[in-house]
Structure formats: C-alpha cells, structure tokens
C-alpha cells in the first residue's frame, strides 16, 4: 500500500492488517516510554486546510510516537492565505523530501491529486464530503475490540449523511467487515443513490431497536438556513438519539465534535454504552498503524510485542 486515499481502495484483509498493527501499538501505549524509533530521521508533513482537533492532533502525536520529524501546516496563517495553489504548496513541502503527507482538504479528490504530485506517501485525513478513511478504521478498531467481529452486526448511521465523509467511509468499511448497515436521516439529508454503496435507507428511527450499534453524525447548524431541515428542534424531535430511544444493550458512537442536545442528548453521550472516548483513544493507535503500514510496513520488523497473545479479548457482545 503506497497511499491511504480511501476505504474504497482497501480489502477486508488490508483493513485487518492495519487494525492488527494498531493492537500492537496499543500495547506500546501502556508502557512508560510510549515512543518507538521506527520513523527516526523521516519527515511527516501534516497539511490541514480545514479546522480539526482530533484528526490533526492524533496524526501529529502518532508521527511523534513513531519518532518522525513533524512539519505541521495549517491553511490559516500559511501561504494558502496568499493564494498559493494546492499544487504549488505540495511542491514546496515536497522539497523537504517528506516520507508522508497527511492532508485534510475541503474538496473531494484532493488527497488523490496530491498523490500524483509528490513521491511521498499520502494519507487522506478527510477530502470534502468524500472519504475519511482513518476515521472509519478507528471506528472499526473500536468496534472490533468491543465485539470481536463485525460479521452480521447491524449498524445504523443516523443524521446528516449527505454532508458527511464519515458516513461514506464508515458505511463502506462496516459493510466490508461483514456488518449490515442502514443509513437514517431526513430525506433531504440522504444522498440519492446512496443505497448502491451497499446499505439500507430509512427516513425515520422506526426500527432502530434492531441495531446493535448506533452511529450518530454531527448535525451542523447552518443546514437550517439551507432548508434541509425546518429547525434543529424538529430535527432533534425526530432524529436525536437519547436514552429513551437507545436501548441499554446498544452501543453508541459519534465521530465528534458533538452538538449536545441536537443529534445526541447529553445523557446518551455520558452513558456507559457510549464509545465516544474509546474512539478518540483508538484514533492515536490506528493513525500510528497507518503511518507504520505506509512507511515501514514492507520492512517486516514489528515495533513491539506482537502475536496472538497481544490481541485483547472482546469485552462484551450484544445480546
């Protein structure tokens, strides 16, 4: 694997290889010294054209834990504000001979284009509303730790599917790992033709009880002014996941940042069935694994204790 541009490009085996690698980094994370020398002397560029807390911080920390030199560029305050094109920015940063470029961009296909302009490995950290593969991998990782396997698991992805790259990457990843996926939201926020990606479509929460996992998406406030929903109040009344709608055996996930009281009730966020904090923790080890697979994966030497014994046993399975 030269680049990580999409979940679409990954086979189930490739996804599992990355997750297995992440498990071994989780073991490293429990040591006092959490750093490994794998990428010593190599450079990772992180190039973010959109604001991000979780993704950018966890990629940055992942690069540092692997001992890489990190150059972190945010569009705000950089030459991008002076009108430099993406192509020229990439050419400039490529002059540092980076081993990897991690890019977040507001438009679909940006990471793929960058891959054509540089010899570095390119990691798509979110391209427009298209894909967010590292998010999907960390979500599958989180669920696999909890459930052991996604085979036959029913997952509902609820909310603004139209504007969500997470929804796209996750429904592909979940389906590829054997889960049955339903996307749910108001018809205005479900893209026409989405079912051809291999999911069911529901315009109401009726039937949610069949799901073992409920994955809520962020509902942005500006969607109201564009007439996608009449009001956040009406949206919440019909689609908010709260403890009344969520049954105690269901697991709850969300990519963050959460609008408390909109797509999720505060109670649901803080409930024991919420995996949100585990998702964030998984972000670090999965992103370490991604960088490792791309930059050192072919070299064979494992960074840490590996093997069957290091695989955590599933904590619980749904009834």
């Amino acid at each position, binding site marked *: 694997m030269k680049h990580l541009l999409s979940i679409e490009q990954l086979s189930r085996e490739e996804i599992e290889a990355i997750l297995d690698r992440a498990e071994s980094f989780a073991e490293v994370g429990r040591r006092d010294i959490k750093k490994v020398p794998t990428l010593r002397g190599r450079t990772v560029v992180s190039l973010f054209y959109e604001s991000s807390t979780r993704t950018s911080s966890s990629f940055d920390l992942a690069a540092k834990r692997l001992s890489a030199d990190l150059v972190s560029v945010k569009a705000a305050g950089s030459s991008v504000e002076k009108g430099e094109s993406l192509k020229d920015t990439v050419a400039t940063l490529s002059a540092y001979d980076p081993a990897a470029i991690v890019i977040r*961009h507001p*438009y*679909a*296909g940006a990471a*793929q284009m960058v891959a054509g302009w540089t010899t570095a490995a390119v990691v798509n950290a979110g391209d427009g509303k*298209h894909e967010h593969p590292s998010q999907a991998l960390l979500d599958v990782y989180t669920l696999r730790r909890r459930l052991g396997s996604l085979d036959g698991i029913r997952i509902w992805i609820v909310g603004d599917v139209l504007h969500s*790259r997470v929804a796209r990457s996750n429904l592909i990843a979940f389906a590829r790992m054997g889960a049955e996926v339903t996307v749910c939201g108001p018809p205005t926020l479900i893209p*026409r*033709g*989405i079912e051809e990606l291999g999911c069911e479509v529901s315009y109401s929460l009726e039937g949610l009880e069949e799901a073992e996992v409920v994955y809520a998406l962020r509902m942005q406030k500006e969607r109201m002014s564009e007439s996608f929903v009449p009001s956040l109040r009406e949206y919440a009344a019909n689609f908010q996941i709260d403890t009344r709608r969520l049954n105690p055996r269901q697991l709850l996930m969300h990519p963050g940042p959460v609008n408390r009281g909109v797509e999720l009730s505060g109670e649901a966020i803080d409930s024991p069935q919420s995996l949100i904090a585990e998702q964030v923790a998984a972000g670090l080890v999965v992103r370490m694994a991604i960088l490792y697979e791309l930059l050192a994966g072919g070299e064979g030497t494992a960074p840490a204790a590996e093997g069957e014994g290091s695989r955590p046993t599933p904590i619980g399975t749904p009834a």
Partner: protein
Amino acid sequence: MSLADLLDVRPGEDAHLVLRRATVLDPVAGIDSVHDVVVRGGEIAALASPGEADTDGAEVVEAEGLHAFPAFFDPHVHLRTPGHEHKEDVETGTRAAAAGGYCGILAMANTEPPVSTPADIAALREQARASASVPVGFLATVTKAMQGGELTEMVELREAGAVGFSDDGLPIADAGVMRRALQYQHLCGGNIALHEEDARLTQGGAMHEGPASAALGVGGIPSVSESTMVGRDVALAGYEQARIHLQHLSAAESVGIVRAAKAAGVRVSAEASPHHLCLTDEAVRSLDPHRFKMNPPLREERDRQALIDGLRDGTIECIATDHAPHQPEEKDVPFEQAAFGVTGLETAFAALHTELVLPGVIDLALLVERMSGGAEPFDLQRPSLAPGSEANVALCDLGAEWTVGEDGYESRSANSWCAGRSLTGRVLITVAAGQVAFRLRSFSLGVAA
C-alpha cells in the same frame, strides 16, 4: 446564404483541388459514391467520374479509400475572446475547428466583458477577418452584461452582425425576461440559444446527481435542473410562436420534452455534445477534472441512450462540441474547485466515429448529417457537396488511428475530454468557404504537374 457571406473569415486564395477517387458521402444531398471532387472558385465545381476530372492547374490529392464529407458546423464554441485570450482566441479556436473538419462555428458571448453591444460584435468580426481560419459567427447576449435582467439592444446587435443570441454559461432565470426576449425576436430575428439550468437546483453541484455522486460525496446537479427549464422554455416559445435552440441537452427527460414539443409544432431545435454521447458519470469516479468536469455534467447510461435516440429520430438535429478551453491552473485543482468545460473541436468527429459508428450504434451517414446540422437553426446554409455549393469539405481517413494529444493541440488549451484516448478516424484536409483551412502535417499531397 453561404457561410462566407454571413460569417467572417480571413480572406485567402480559393483552393483549386481535385480529391481523386474519394468516397463522397453527403446524406442530405443524396450522394454516396466514388468521385473526383473538384474544388475551384470557391465552389464544388464538379463531382466527376473517378479518375476523369480535369486536373489541369489543380493540386491533386490521391483520395482513394478516403472519405469526403460536407465539412462540419459547430453552433456552440467558446473562443474566450475578449478577456480570456490565455485560454483561446479567434485564431487558435478557428485553427482547432479547422483541424476537426469544421467549416464554420458560432462563438458564445459569455466573454469578459460579455458580447453585449454592437461595438463588441464589430470588434470581433474585425478580428475574425484578420485571423479566422474558418468562417465564424458571433452571438450576442440576450440580457445586458448577462445579468439576466434587461434585454440587450437586439435590433442593433443584429444590424451589427450578431448571428443570434445566447446567455450561454448561465440560464435566463427570470421567466418574464425570457418571455420578453421571445416576443422581441419577432422584431429583431435571430435564434435564441438557451443554456437550460435552474440554478437553485444545481447550487453547489459539480457532477450529475446519482449513485456516483452519492459515493463520491460531490454535490449533485440533478437531471430535473435541466428538464424543468426545458419544459418552461418550450412552453414559452410555443405560446409566443418564437424560435429557440436548446444547447447541450444532457438528460433523458429533456429529450422527451423536446420530442413532444416538436410534435406539437413548437419551433425548437436542439444539440447534443460528443462527450454526453460517449461518456457517463461513471467516468467521474476518477475525479479527473481535466477530462470529466463540465456543465451540464455527464449523466447516466439511460440519458446517453436517450440522446442517441434523439439523434436518430431528429429530435436532436445537431452535434455541438461546447468547446470550452481552460488553462491547467483552472483544472489542476480538486474536482469541485475546477472550472467547468472541456475542449472538443479537434476530436468530435473521430470520437463519435470511434464510439458510436464503429460499434454500430449509429451509421456513418447519420453522424455526418448531424455534424453539420448546426447551421440551419441559425439561418445558415447547411454545408453540402452538391455541385455548385460553396466548397466546404472534410476529407477523412476512417482507418487512421491516433492518440489524442500526443502531438499537442491546435487549441491553446489541452483540457480535452479525449486526452490520451486512442481514436479511429482522422481529418486530413478541411476546405472551408473555398479555402484550404487545414492539412494534417503527416499527410503528404501528390501534386500533378
């Protein structure tokens, strides 16, 4: 009236050519046989029996096995002049047209500033007389500065030589303005060419709305954004007994509406573009903005089939390239940010021959007829090979294989939707309004003593 009378071209010498033993195909004139085609004095002087033409003083082209067609006419080209000459100008754009076998083109008015005044038309006509390889006509905008609000001075624009009117690039959103333009057409004449799009339905869109856009997370341009406007405008044209030309149809529903409108007697003509006839939105999965981002967007297979059916039954009378040159910096950006448009003049015939004629989807005669069907909707004479006609000839080698772009382009821009494709069929010589407008460099001519 001949193209040379109504359009503008750089003056030059009339060709004196004999295309010896060419296979002559002009379906409208009912010609399909081998002849010596004699071009002299600006006309098709004769279609002589093979090998029997008087070659005295003529340049003789050994054309055995080659095809002579009426040269093509494209009613929809962006010459980008004035304002964007770094993308294309009158000289490069008409050179590209000549290389594609065209003997005439119409240039759109969405330049910077838009072509909205008689002085704009006069200046462009002067440029064409100085530098155009093939006759070119200019459309003026329907509304002032293409703002969609007030009509341009359409009578004066016609007197200055505007061939017709179009706000192409933008729809005329206001139905009231559209209606006034159609009423006023009874005074000023000139067809009105319409880019049909409801901007409220395409907002934020960059490709056809369907499974491919859902998978890519790219904003969709639904088919109904076109068909609803087509429905509105054929209704208005019918009511006002006015004439409209619908540009670059892309959606199956639009074709159905036009077919019904024609049957009801509405004076409507329509065009389809080679890329919409050859490609679908599946190509957009590559997110390659150079080749696959245009407006209207590539649609689904059922839409493509509907366009082909429209070509067959005459609902769509002509093929138009919507040749839209852009420079690399406008295309070397993520798909959604890239400019809309692809070039098409140099490849239209070869692409359609390769994709539709060779697989047997349509026959050669239909393609040839539709390639020059864009003249009549604008009151221009259809190019013809009947003796006595103005000499407009495309000599083609239907067996020649070539790779698009390997020798560069005549156009100033390289955003061809065919870039890198291998095509079969190539234009060797174009005669436009009696002059040799193009010769393929690698095709050597035999000259008789």
